[in-house]
């Protein structure tokens, strides 16, 4: 064996470096996995306690409309019915996403296709800035501007799903917009030029080519926005009214999963039913966020195959 042959067969500095690199990056990902597992275990173990140690019926929990964990009902069962909160959480999330999507896509189109130069220069930083505004501030603007306005128009107290929707609309707008911009930018330029060269107007190009090509990623953007809306607490808490009542219209006080959780968690005693029931709400939030992410994965996969 000559020298070069020997070198070919034995590890070198480069192979050692690569092992170091793998160790470092694998350690990091392992650390994150441990973090995730620990928090998932933590929430699950506490959230499940309502059903295992306090023997609350799962179906009653999901379908009941009374929430008074401190008191028992006529059958001696604690009153923990989460249905009003589940309904409200979904309502505000879906309505906010429905409201925000056309705006977000319009802004994204403006930034990518209509006025790419100035639009992006001005809108991009502003939209990024919106992400940084603390939810407390959104909440107080909601409380001092949105709620009185709704009260003025519809009467009542002004708190409710509508107020929550409007606040969440502004909060998820930047999330959806920036992801929509990415989605549209990912459509290759020749799609546009080909369509325009065939004599299509800009609108036809946008509608028939761009939006269709970007559809999976646009949907992902919307669902990301919904995930954010679903988990938002402080801002919603201030404008939703926090009354555990089945919402019958958009302008009466009601409560979301997060608002109930945030409002009451500090006042309950660890290990008691009222506390465990709140953790069960957190568990629902967690599972929903999982569902949202699975949908995103699914859409993402289908989008890949299509293109």
């Amino acid at each position, binding site marked *: 064996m000559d020298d070069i*042959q020997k*070198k070919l067969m034995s590890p070198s500095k*480069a*192979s050692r470096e*690569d092992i170091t690199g793998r160790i470092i990056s694998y350690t990091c990902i392992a650390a994150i996995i441990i973090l995730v597992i620990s928090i998932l275990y933590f929430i699950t173990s506490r959230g499940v306690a309502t059903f295992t140690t306090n023997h609350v019926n799962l179906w009653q929990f999901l379908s009941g409309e009374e929430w008074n964990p401190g008191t028992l009902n006529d059958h001696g069962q604690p009153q923990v019915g989460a249905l009003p909160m589940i309904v409200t959480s979904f309502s505000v999330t879906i309505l906010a996403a429905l409201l925000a999507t056309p705006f977000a896509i319009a802004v994204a189109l403006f930034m990518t296709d209509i006025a790419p130069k100035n639009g992006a220069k001005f809108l991009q930083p502003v939209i990024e800035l919106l992400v940084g505004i603390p939810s407390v501030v959104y909440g107080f603007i909601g409380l001092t501007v949105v709620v009185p306005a709704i009260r003025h128009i519809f009467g009542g107290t002004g708190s409710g799903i509508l107020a929550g929707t409007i606040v969440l609309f502004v909060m998820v707008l930047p999330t959806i917009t920036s992801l929509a911009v990415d989605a549209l930018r990912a459509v290759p330029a020749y799609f546009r030029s080909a369509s325009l060269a065939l004599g299509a107007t800009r609108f036809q190009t946008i509608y028939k080519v761009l939006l269709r090509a970007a559809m999976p990623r646009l949907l992902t953007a919307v669902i990301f926005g919904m995930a954010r809306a679903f988990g938002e607490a402080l801002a919603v808490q201030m404008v939703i009214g926090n009354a555990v009542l089945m919402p019958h219209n958009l302008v009466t006080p009601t409560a979301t999963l997060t608002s109930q959780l945030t409002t009451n968690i500090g006042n309950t005693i660890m290990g008691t039913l009222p506390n465990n029931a709140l953790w069960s709400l957190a568990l629902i939030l967690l599972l929903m966020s999982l569902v949202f992410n699975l949908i995103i994965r699914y859409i993402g996969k289908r989008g890949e195959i299509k293109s």
Partner: protein
Amino acid sequence: MQAYDLSQTHIVTPAEEIALSTNQLQVYYGNSKHASMSDASLSFPRFQITALIGASGSGKSTYLRSLNRLNDRIARIKGEIIYRHTNINDSKVNVYEVRKHIGMVFQKPNPFAKSISENITFALKAQGITNRQELKQRVETSLKEAALWDEVKDDLNKSALALSGGQQQRLCIARAIAMKPDILLLDEPASALDPISTTKLEVTLKELAKNYTIIIVTHNMQQASRISTYTAFFHLGHVLEYDRTERIFQTPMIQATHDYVTGNFG
């Protein structure tokens, strides 16, 4: 496309000293069961230029990239690659060492986003060469060998991305030969260049062939006939003909080769 008989081949083994050879090389991309390159057995003569020609998708680039195991991450490769009496297509072989001896230049110039001299010294430093004088020397020699020195000698600290396409490609060659490899693989190095840069590049390659074994993939048949000693013709993942360049272009033995070099292909 006309169907050619893929089992009829004409492959010679050069009489010269062999620098690199493959034996029954097969390449499978991803999880695909279909071989993108099947049973290629070729021997490349030392200090000569060998050209790999064929239509798009014929497997010539796939084959070339397998030679220094650059396809490892995306494909499964079966068969043998013999270099210095060692089968280097073996998981026990240190691929980093392999690539030091078998360098590669790509279709599109891909200089690092660093200065011109750093482009060349980066890999050298990673090998443990720290002597400034030696590094400087290597930069100069390799740039001279790649015929770029006169154009950039005053701008060695400028970003490589500011060079023209042709200059960038020659920098990539300089970067590869600074490692003092045995063999240089070139994957359509001139396809992104204008005619003047192409001519310059060909002259450079001919000069380099005095000290290096060169294997080049090209679309340009004139180029292949101008610079190479041997030529292999690829078709649909098979090597159909391998012989001295003049024979391939003047008296090909295989119908497909004939049609391809005369422009009656497809």
